[in-house]
């Protein structure tokens, strides 16, 4: 299994599209920073005009922490979309080039092969997130400096620079679970649909559907806590004035459960299906 995972990672980092994905993350980050620079100041001035008369804020509110928070918001759609396209390609490309067949003509079990794909997808996701987190913090602090963070979630919340840093780090880590979930979904969709374009369309639909269903409120708290689209926003809870750690933990555990279940479905389908 270790050999398979090593080989999967070797293949991933020998493909041009991996570097396109990394470049896409940087471009996205750059867009957010540039647009924040040009539009953020005006927005904050209007938004906080009245509050400035009553409160005193430390430093410039259009600072690195706010930029990091804006980049973090790309976890809603942009980053998962890039991830789903690239990660599903790890398998759909192999179907297209028929290298799945070539691998399975060697003494390699279908189960180990597909598990290695899931593990490689998780490692790749962790790698992309690592790059995103490190570069976001470095570039944001470098260009925009540190300062208090203002966020609007059920009202305005203000955090000191140190607390903002801690909360942003926790949010990135909790949000990473959602990204791992989407990466696993991508591989399972690739197992089910095999063809790249179909898989991309279904992956995009899945992402859009999940984002829309997130706002759906059920009467039953039990249903709300198990309905998977509502589990993908745990990182937002980190910016409540009192962090609801218990809720975040529960949601994260259920999301990990869903991730495992979706991977299991993909593994079973791949094992059962003929390679034609």
């Amino acid at each position, binding site marked *: 299994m270790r050999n398979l995972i090593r080989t999967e990672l070797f293949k991933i980092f020998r493909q041009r599209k991996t570097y396109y994905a990394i470049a896409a993350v940087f471009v996205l980050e750059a867009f957010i920073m540039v647009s924040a620079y040009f539009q953020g100041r005006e927005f904050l001035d209007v938004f906080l005009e009245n509050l400035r008369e009553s409160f005193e804020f430390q430093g410039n509110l259009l600072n690195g922490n706010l930029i990091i928070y804006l980049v973090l918001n790309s976890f809603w759609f942009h980053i998962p979309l890039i991830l789903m396209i690239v990660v599903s390609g790890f398998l759909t490309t192999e179907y297209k080039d028929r290298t799945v067949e070539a691998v*399975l003509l060697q003494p390699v079990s279908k189960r180990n092969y597909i598990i290695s794909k899931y593990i490689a997808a998780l490692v790749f996701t962790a790698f992309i997130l690592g790059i995103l987190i490190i570069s976001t913090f470095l570039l944001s602090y470098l260009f925009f400096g540190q300062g208090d963070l203002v966020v609007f979630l059920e009202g305005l919340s203000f955090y000191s620079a140190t607390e903002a840093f801690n909360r942003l780090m926790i949010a990135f880590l909790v949000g990473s679970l959602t990204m791992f979930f989407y990466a696993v979904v991508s591989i399972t969709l690739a197992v089910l649909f095999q063809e790249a374009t179909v898989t991309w369309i279904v992956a995009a639909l899945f992402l859009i559907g999940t984002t829309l269903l997130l706002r759906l409120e059920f009467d039953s708290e039990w249903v709300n806590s198990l309905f998977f689209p509502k589990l993908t926003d745990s990182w937002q809870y980190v910016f409540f004035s009192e962090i609801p750690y218990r809720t975040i933990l529960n949601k994260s555990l259920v999301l990990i459960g869903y991730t495992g279940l979706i991977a299991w479905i993909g593994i079973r389908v791949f094992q059962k299906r003929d390679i*034609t």
Partner: protein
Amino acid sequence: MILDARDVRKSYGSLEVLKGVSLSLSSGEICGLIGPNGAGKSTLFRILLGLVSRDAGTLEIHSGASKPLGGIIEKPALYGYLSAFENLLVFSRIQGLKQSGTDIESQLLQVGLSPNRKDPVRNFSMGMKQRLGLAIALLNEPECVILDEPFSGLDPMGIRTLQDEIRGLAKARGIGILISSHNLVELGDLCDRLYVINQGEIVREGPAREILQQAARSYIIYGTGLESSAVLAAAHVEHRTGSVLLHLGEDSIHAILRRLSTEPGVILTACVPQTNLAALFEKTPE
């Protein structure tokens, strides 16, 4: 015997692709499988290689090797963005083979590929890809190799080189080889035995030359003086430049050749049987 498949059946929905196919292969033997498009060749190969499940029948592989069967289905599937060396490295690693750089280079040389080419294999010709595919199929020393249409897309030189490599594998290394092709001449030259498959059934099997001979209904005869031959004038022939196409009537080819060889002014240089595909794919009467 290394491979023994008995009464293998496979259906896709209501379409019965294989209707009880039996086939066997011994070490060092080259066996051909021939049939029209859609006859079930690739499905049978995929079942033998474990890529597709069978609905019924038995498959016995008598081998103690960790990789009893190697194979290529249709065109070789390679990682186009990797070099030949890296492809071999990847396929070695996934099956836990610890190979040094020198080992891999010697495997490339064995199939006639230069270890110095570092560019991605997507730049390779079909012949080079086929040879690399063969090197991958031979990793881990399988006792049997299954090659589906290995000559497709190759030029005559490429076909000859690959044929020589296949012969070498069978004779020198004792590997059993099961091979399919549309080209009767290629299979006739190469194979010890031949299976003919049509509509999911083995319709003929036996020594390759015998099977092809049985289905030959015409012959191209090469030589000089053929235009003025009285023997050929009495037969059903079409004259071509430097040759005639002879359609067999009541006389056997042996009788006609015997008479031609004694006819004054006629010098024979070659006689090539032209297999009638309809006759070849026709089911042998029980």
